[in-house]
């Protein structure tokens, strides 16, 4: 079953085509790497899929909902986490969970149970009343991710979730993604770490608004006769002509 389906999805700003007829499918439970150079159109594409921006043309369904007409439904069925914005540092762990649970529309009764369960799985029962800003970075990230999927969304969008994070924490974070994927939650990830591209089931690489390659990492490396994903990426991104 596909949780994301796009068909010639495009977004133009005036004469500038940020996203140029991209078509792809992402299957349930898949970890999908969404790569591209700065300015290749990743952010614009992701915003359309999250229901934050209306496409100029083409079709797309996210979690079964149409990106033109059912943006509100889409927002209920996805989770979102970025490195820049994740949690409120001046709220406690418990308050953050309650806040985002509320935002995602969890009923009050369910929320209390879910909060306890979440803190238990994270091993953070003693931190319920700790301010998030006082947590170590690794914990913050774990918490941010868990909060992003507190409503058991079909898809979680992760926008450079590991930027600047130390290597060990980065790997622990990926284990969280794997665990979520085993539960059937699809992960849609952007990253600038090319080794992380290898952790994805499939990877797409955008160049100048178009998807230039989409396959399993191993297959991509075969096609481009490259030793690692970094070389694949560079081979493709060099072709970029637009500088914006």
């Amino acid at each position: 079953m596909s949780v994301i389906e796009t068909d010639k999805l495009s977004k133009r700003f005036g004469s500038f085509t940020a996203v140029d007829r991209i078509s792809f499918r992402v299957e349930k439970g898949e970890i999908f790497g969404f790569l591209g150079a700065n300015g290749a159109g990743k952010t614009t594409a992701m915003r359309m899929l999250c229901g934050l921006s209306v496409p100029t043309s083409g079709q797309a369904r996210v979690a079964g909902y149409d990106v033109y007409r059912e943006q509100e439904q889409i927002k209920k069925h996805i989770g979102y986490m970025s490195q820049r914005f994740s949690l409120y540092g001046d709220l406690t762990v418990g308050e953050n969970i309650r806040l985002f649970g509320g935002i995602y529309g969890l009923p009050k009764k369910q929320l209390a149970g879910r909060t306890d369960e979440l803190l238990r799985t994270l091993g953070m029962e003693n931190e319920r009343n700790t301010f998030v800003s006082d947590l170590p970075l690794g914990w913050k990230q774990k918490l941010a991710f868990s909060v992003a999927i507190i409503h058991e969304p079909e898809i979680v969008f992760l926008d450079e979730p590991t930027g600047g994070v130390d290597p060990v924490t980065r790997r622990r974070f990926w284990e969280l993604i794997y665990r979520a994927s085993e539960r059937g939650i699809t992960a849609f990830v952007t990253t600038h770490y090319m080794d992380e591209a290898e952790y994805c089931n499939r990877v797409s690489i955008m160049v100048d608004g178009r998807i230039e390659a989409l396959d399993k990492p191993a297959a991509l490396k075969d096609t481009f006769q490259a030793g690692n994903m970094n070389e694949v990426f560079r081979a493709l991104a060099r072709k970029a002509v637009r500088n914006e």
Partner: protein
Amino acid sequence: MNQVIIRNISRKYGDTTALQAVGFSVPPGELFGLIGPDGAGKTTLFRILTTLLLPDSGSATVCGFDIIRDWKEIRTRVGYMPGRFSLYQDLSMEENLLFFATVFNTRVEENYDLIRDIYVQIEPFRKRRAGKLSGGMKQKLALCCALIHRPEVLFLDEPTTGVDPVSRVEFWDMLRRLKQQGITILVSTPYMDEASRCDRIALMRSGHCLSIDTPGAICRSFGKPLYAVRSGRMYALLKELRTYKETFSCYAFGDSHHLTLNPGGADDVGALQTWLRDKGYTDVSIEPIAPGIEDCFMESGDRNV
């Protein structure tokens, strides 16, 4: 004489230790890297060396001048590109460059040879507002601004963070060329794979220097055999390997898992292969590999972050 000498510098913010007894020297013309994640103390160290912050204890000299007493001298001799430096968004590329040239008491023409390589790449956009430039171009412009007065020492705080891999490679190539012009460069980065582009590096975590040496020497000091393990089911394999009694550490590393076995143990790859086959992994490959900087970083010191 060393261009930068740091002796035992410590600095706290309230109760948080940002730097703890850090010390090293950088000779003229070296490309020196501070490698570490957020919170390692890289920015604090740069701010102390550029005379923007005072250390709690310890001392340092830059270009032979004391960072506390001779701050005025240092400020005319160094170039600095702070991490979140984003130029003046509402000024055009050219205006930004001209402004920084006058601020540093020079003209663009005077040191044009130094920035020419970089500037020609962005020149077609010189009338464009800095806010409308792409990340890679902004970064190049910022570098031009920091170089405009031909500094003796250049401090670059995380110039490649958030920049895509292609632009990152280009950026390091530029630094190489600058180094050939005799400029001493200190650069920080959270990307471990960039360490190999430096002459020497300091691995930093939580305010401590873990090791200071050439990237090659640090890798050689890894001190135990490292294996790359692959199979069709990577995540399951990772969990399985962690339960193996001889496993010392095991981390996902791109398309393979990097594994070290318990020191003093048998270090028997054959035994591991058999154990995995019994668990149902028939397609496993295990090969010894040379450790990288990231392996060294993860193996060193306290791993509980």
